[in-house]
């Protein structure tokens, strides 16, 4: 499955509106000035895939992921939402739809609400379905900023363990 769309509403710096990033199945580049929000998009994907550690999303707690407000108009929003829409034509996610949409909302109290194709579900269910498709937020296919050389800075024993984990 590949990602067709990522939607961010009040997630980190993507405040005040619903931002829609539609993607093709090939090679898409994301660029822009320092601090513009590029890595926040990566955080949004990890968040949507069920990431359990807020520190991996560079936040002290999950409620910190909600847009802080730009101090101007109203008060800070009460929730942040990320929607990830997968193309499931290969059927690898064990759900009967050609498109699988997962969404996650986090509230000011830190609690998250998950949905698959609009229907409420648990984080566990999402992690389970995605892992059957080989998708998980800690996979090697996601390389956070500044971590690329980790794969060669590891010890020989850690390198062996990476191979063992693959089988």
């Amino acid at each position, binding site marked *: 499955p590949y990602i067709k769309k990522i939607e961010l509403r009040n997630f980190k710096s993507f405040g005040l509106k619903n931002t829609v990033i539609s993607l093709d199945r090939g090679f898409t*580049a994301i*660029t822009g000035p320092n601090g513009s929000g590029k890595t926040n998009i990566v955080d949004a994907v990890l968040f949507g895939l069920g990431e359990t550690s807020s520190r991996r999303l560079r936040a002290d707690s999950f409620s910190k992921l909600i847009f802080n407000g730009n101090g101007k108009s109203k008060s800070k929003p009460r929730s942040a939402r990320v929607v990830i829409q997968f193309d499931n034509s290969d059927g690898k996610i064990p759900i009967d739809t050609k498109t699988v949409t997962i969404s996650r909302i986090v509230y000011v109290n830190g609690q998250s609400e998950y949905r698959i194709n609009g229907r409420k579900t648990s984080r566990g269910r999402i992690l389970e379905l995605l892992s059957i498709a080989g998708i998980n937020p800690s996979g090697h296919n996601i*390389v*956070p900023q500044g971590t690329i050389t980790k794969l060669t800075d590891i010890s020989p024993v850690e*390198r*062996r363990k990476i191979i063992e984990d693959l089988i």
Partner: protein
Amino acid sequence: KKKAFMDAFNQINESLSYYFGKLTGGGKAYMKLENPDDPFSGGVDMIVQFPNKPEILVSGASGGERSVASVAFLFAIQKLNPASFYLLDEVDAHLDSFHVAKLSELLVEESSKSQFLVITLKPEMASRAQKIYGVYERNGVSNIVSATIK
């Protein structure tokens, strides 16, 4: 168990060689068991040979060289168990223009099989993509614009 490990090891080694050769324009890389008779009693070393240079342990290579080797290793382990999408955040930060060009060519090639979302500050990388999203910030809020190249 040893057989399963050795099969994976050999496959990854083959892919590593392929991808490293692509990223360096002819360099060689391979993994070596510290203890070939009993793989699980030792670790796995990685040896690289950049074009026209001697063989060295990857830990002795320069910062940019280790970035290149890491990307080759990443592609190699993924080949065993391909991912449907990749999310790469500034993996080209320490690469010189030669390696940036090589990496972008490899991404174009591999993008027919998998999806790649690549965050980069380098125009030479972004310009090789099929679609570019520009992210910018106005009054503390992020916005995006997109440009489709092909």
